[in-house]
């Protein structure tokens, strides 16, 4: 960012440098303030508001502005919210793992391709990113639903007699839908981490007698795994906060922490408790991101 400002003001460096170092310093500082300050303001202020809210409480639907830890105590004391929290963490990890496995397989196959086809397929696999999220959930519901294409296929293939409700309105449906929707988010970072494995390393492994499987196990996997795990953790963060997918396809098993937070707003008017739950979620997300950062740093040192 600062380089940009230097380049812009440095059209005639000799003159600018001699005449106005102060002005340039000022301009650079102003630019930095704008570059870092505006997003900080836009992100930190709402976050701070939430944090403050989480220490207030409500009485008869009215927010009482006095400091209290009651909301956090409530979170820990009410087994419902604690249970939903751990359940959601578990769900998100399964989604992340599924995305990692399938994302890795797809990214690997695309990576092994050559020429134009490779980037065409990569583009194809990440195109769903441009689609509306709710449309994607509806699409998944149309596939998994009672009269959905999956059931149609199974019935016509003669595998089942009547449409099954096994694929929709349960935990499995949530996992499948999330894994499918978030798969592109996994494919991209995994592909990029595979891209960083130099072809000459593969050649070297083969040259030293490594069969394709050995090369994959000893070279490709260890070099691409850290980046891939970071991608999976990214998916985990997305899945943690998702309250729509469980709502739409989870049926009576689709209650997640995101929905617990959501339920505190709207008619419930319990913003402080909702804010406290949101802070808990935010902290876990920050923790996951720190783990991801640690993994990628460790991988880079090597």
């Amino acid at each position, binding site marked *: 960012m600062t380089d940009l400002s230097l380049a812009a003001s440095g059209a005639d460096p000799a003159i600018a440098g001699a005449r106005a170092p102060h002005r340039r310093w000022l301009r650079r500082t102003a630019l930095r303030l704008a570059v870092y300050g505006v997003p900080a303001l836009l992100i930190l202020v709402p976050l701070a508001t939430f944090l403050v809210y989480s220490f207030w409480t409500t009485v008869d639907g009215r927010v009482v502005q006095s400091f209290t830890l009651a909301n956090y105590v409530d979170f820990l004391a009410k087994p419902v919210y604690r249970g939903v929290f751990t359940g959601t963490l578990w769900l998100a990890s399964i989604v992340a793992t599924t995305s990692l496995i399938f994302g890795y397989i797809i990214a690997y196959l695309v990576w092994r391709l050559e020429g134009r086809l490779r980037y065409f397929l990569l583009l194809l696999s990440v195109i769903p990113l441009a689609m509306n999220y709710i449309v994607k959930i509806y699409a998944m519901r149309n596939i998994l639903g009672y009269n959905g294409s999956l059931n149609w296929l199974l019935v016509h293939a003669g595998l089942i007699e009547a449409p099954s409700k096994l694929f929709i309105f349960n935990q499995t449906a949530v996992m499948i839908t999330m894994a499918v929707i978030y798969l592109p988010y996994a494919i991209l970072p995994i592909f990029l981490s595979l891209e960083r494995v*130099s072809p*000459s*390393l593969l*050649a*070297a*492994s*083969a*040259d*030293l*007698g*490594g*069969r394709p499987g*050995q090369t994959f196990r*000893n*070279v490709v996997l*260890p*070099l691409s795994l850290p980046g891939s795990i970071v991608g999976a953790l990214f998916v985990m963060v997305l899945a943690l906060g998702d309250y729509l997918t469980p709502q739409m396809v989870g049926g009576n098993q689709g209650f997640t922490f995101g929905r617990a937070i959501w339920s505190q707003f709207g008619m419930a008017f319990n913003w402080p408790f909702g804010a406290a739950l949101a802070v808990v979620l935010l902290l876990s997300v920050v923790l996951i991101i720190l783990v991801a950062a640690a993994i990628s740093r460790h991988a880079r040192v*090597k």
Partner: protein
Amino acid sequence: MIGAPSTGADAGMSFRNLIHLAGVGKSYGAVNVLKPVDLTIGDGEFLTILGPSGSGKTTILRMLGGFTPPSTGRILLDGVDITDMPIFERPFNTVFQDYALFPHMSVAKNVGYGLKMRRRPRAEIDAKVADVLAMVELSDKAGRYPAELSGGQRQRVALARAIVCEPKVVLLDEPLGALDAELRRSMQDFLKALQRRIRTTFVFITHDQEEAISMSDRIVVMDHGKVEQVGTPKDIYYRPQSEFVAKFFGENNILPARLTAGADPAIESPLGGHALHGAAPAGTCSVAIRPESFSLGEAANTAAGQRSMVGRLESLTFLGATTQLVVRLGDGSPHTVKVRLPTPDLGEGVGIGEAVSLRWSTADVSVLNA
């Protein structure tokens, strides 16, 4: 093809034939990157493939290593066709241009990788890795990661990794290209000494003529996807067969020539007429002679096989141990030659514009293909 006389045999080296490239060529679609080559490589030989970039030298190496399948021809190892043998089964190991060390493995693991792939026992791997690391003087770096090593050290790890499996051939793809001049020279010595010690065939790719001449048993000179000449460094230097080779190594005098056909074919050039040595290739039209192949001396003292000619000195450049002269071959001749003489040989005598008597051996005059 296989029955054709191979260039390796012509060179008369004392190596047993190990590899035979029989009509091996490569083209990508309509683009012919390597015209069919016939070449034998001897067991224990240090063979250098030399050429400018795009000459096809790397293509030969890649086909040897199994990284690229040839479009035509076969590759034989001890008489066995290995053209279609997968990379990982070939008893060859490569030192890559960028070293291609595994960044997530320690030096010892990198070096032991080939043995591990061959499922050798742990103890054997450890022992061999230790031996090879000692050989490349990196015993104290066994636990380091490639990122923690200098360029020269990485180079030696790559070398150690390539020789630890005792391959039949070590392929080296411009391994010294990334090193600075000083390190490069010491690595050249190191590499040559190592090769002598382990007596393994090295196929070495470079674009550096001096490197090729100082290290190789034989040199394959390539240009534009074609083998220009194969021979010992001296052969290549003093008996170039083409203008490209003649010009590729240092300074040379190239003079137009005319073939006189007949029962006793001879060549006629500004240096006079010579009998041809061996068969004259068709279309021959020039000769080459090195500046240092000349000496000063009267025609009267000319020995058998020697010629002399009186020319006129046009310029004289003192270069230290040697001095370079430019001599016009006779008054009114359009041709000049560069002559390089040890400075003491020159004495005090010659001045610009004065007559000088040049002497040379006809054996040092090479007839060049067009």
